[in-house]
């Protein structure tokens, strides 16, 4: 299942990484990561905090530039010379803290990037934004400011905002970590919905329900390395590594 680190990246894969490494001064955040994500696949990245999960998925839209190894997105090798606009239009990212633009209404949050980056006319951008806002069940709040919304509502707006760029890959960086349980279910429902529509999804989360039921594969990381890549059924019932077993024990006892 794991690709040979020495092999070339798979051009047919949506995401393909070989020996991807990232350093923060002396600290090794990512240590020779290699794996492929096929189109339409849903991956959940698990691991204790500080294991490099967020750093990994942030490499995919080069918010965090990697230091060595090869990263290929949709057949394009990504490096310092890459067209970041094109890459980031392809790969959407949803943050733990939503990071909505507080000075813009919900609707303007969704239309800003399409209008600036893709030069989409306002009317068209707004129509599309309303479509996605409807999809995340928040269309009626379109003219409010983020500060007037609850956390769960804000995160749904953030998902709609990312979708407005019509990405081929959606990255979720702990999207439910800042939410209360009620809000979590709403956001998870949206993510399920998206997953069913076939968009390639990588999600860093502690939301085990989503991991268990939706993910095609689980990536388990620790200390910047991938320890396991397995289907959820196998991961949850029969983890291969002691580290993963400890992790799951902690999740359950918690």
């Amino acid at each position, binding site marked *: 299942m794991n690709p040979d680190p020495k092999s070339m990246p798979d051009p047919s894969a949506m995401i393909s990484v070989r020996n991807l490494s990232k350093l923060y001064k002396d600290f090794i955040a990512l240590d020779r990561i290699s794996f492929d994500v096929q189109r339409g696949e849903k991956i959940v990245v698990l691991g204790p905090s500080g294991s490099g999960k967020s750093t990994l998925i942030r490499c995919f*839209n080069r*918010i965090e530039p990697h230091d060595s190894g090869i990263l290929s997105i949709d057949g394009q090798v990504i490096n310092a010379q890459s067209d*970041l*606009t*094109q*890459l*980031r*239009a392809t790969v*959407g*990212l949803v*943050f733990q*803290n939503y*990071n*909505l*633009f*507080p*000075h*813009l209404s919900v609707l303007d949050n969704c239309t*800003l*990037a399409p209008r*600036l*980056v893709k030069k989409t006319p306002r009317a068209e951008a707004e129509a599309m934004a309303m479509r996605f806002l409807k999809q995340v069940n928040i269309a009626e709040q379109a*003219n*409010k*400011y*983020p*500060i*007037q919304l609850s956390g769960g509502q804000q995160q749904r707006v953030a998902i709609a*905002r*990312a979708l407005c*760029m019509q990405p081929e890959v959606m990255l979720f960086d702990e999207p439910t970590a800042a939410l209360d349980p009620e809000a979590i279910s709403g956001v998870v429902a949206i993510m399920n919905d998206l997953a069913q529509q076939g968009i390639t999804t990588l999600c860093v989360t502690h939301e085990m329900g989503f991991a268990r039921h939706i993910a095609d594969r689980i990536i388990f990381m620790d200390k910047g390395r991938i320890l396991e890549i397995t289907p959820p059924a196998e991961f949850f019932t029969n983890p291969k590594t002691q580290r993963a077993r400890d992790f799951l024990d902690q999740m359950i006892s918690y």
Partner: protein
Amino acid sequence: MTHSMAQFMRRCPFRLRPRVLAAALGGALAIAGSALAADPDLPGFIHDGTLTVCTNPTLPPMTFVNGTDVNAVDGIDMDIAHRLAEYWHVPMVVTTMDFTGLFPSLAAQRCSMVASGIIKLPDREKNFDAVSYQDTALVVVARAGTPPLSSMTDLSGKTVAVQSGTSYSARLAKENEALAQAGRAPIIIQQYPTEDQVVQQVLIGRVFAFASQDVELYYRQEQLHGKVNVILVPPYPEYRHFALYIRKNAHDRELLEQAIATMGQNGQMAAIQKKWAISPDAAKALAHTPPAPMFRWDTFFSALTSTAFMRGAFITLAVAVLSHFTAIMISIPMALALNGRDSLLKMVLKGYVSVFRGAPTLLQLLFIWNALPQFLPVFREAWFTPFLATWLSLSINESAYQVEINRAALGAVDKGQELAGDALAMSRRQVYRHVIFPQALRIALPPTINEFISLLKTTSLASVISLQELLAVTQIQVARTFEFTEYYAAALVYYLGMVFFFLFLQKRVERRFAWADRHKATANES
């Protein structure tokens, strides 16, 4: 006295460019008449049949601008010059200039004579001939009702105000040496930058007395409303005569002396003295002047509605707005650079901020106005007006403060905002323009308005480089009338009016930032 005048003139808020004022004298009749009755013995200093008089019109009542038209030079000296021109049947032309330019211009034959309330001094007479036309005396003046003193030593231990840097303070210092030798307490000398402030200290009773020339005091009697009296006329040999100066020529001097003597005999001189209230009777008249009311409302209201005050307020506002706008424009890229990675540029900018925040604003203004032309002669030229100099120095000064506000505001925008903009494929420029700046603006606005209000008032410092802003206008009016309270009150009204307007504007603008406040945002919706 001459020294004191040079000081006075340098500080004088008027900045008159050398300009020529033609005065058609005696009309066509006098000139036509002169063809027949021409005196063949014209002095040599009358060139091309014209009497050219150089003056620095800042010393009432000798030579000054009496009113709002800065081109109209008035005073005893001008009246005497007019009579001299009539005496010789020639037209007269007045050239105004800086005090320091008077004698060089005379030497360079640009003037026939200098008539500028200058004391007759042996030092001057080495190079020029002087003909005195008006007696004068140094007087020590105290509040009305103060008993006269018998000698300068009676001032021992008392406070005396003088205009700073004048020869008066040197003269008093000499008295102090004598007092010290006699083992007595010295005279305490307080120095003030303008003559009117010197007088004010006595009027309000902070100091015991001030030193002045009698003619100036007589002229001011009406303004002073009998609030002061002369307590001593020290027997100093200097400060005795005002003189007209001409280039050295014994024959010319004789002719000028004759002319002055003739004016004394035919009553013209007496008429001039009467007109300007400097006759010996003037001192007596003082005692009968009725006391002024506490606050003259008519003066206050006429100041409030005068074009001079409106113009001053406009200049204050214009220089403040332009300076702050420029400062903001400079400080935004500076703030971005300072928030960025370490570089040589960043070090240079840190130095810039330290220097311009560290140095007093007044010093910076003086440096740009007075010292900069020493290095760069281009700043000596006429295009570099006090307004431009103020704009330049306040922009630089303010940018050093504004950059800290900008830096803090940019730093206060959540880092996640930039990340979100990046993740949405926006370019650097788009992220700053549409995401970071609008949010930083809200944070920066209240301290920026604060800075602006502070700057609006800092512009008053520019009066030292002769910018005719609101406070300079106020001081000129005060110097002319001694109605401190009324003019200060009018200036206060203008300053407060402007500040309140900007505070009101701030409230209006802040309403546009409803997005930052949940309640406001919700209220706006309904």
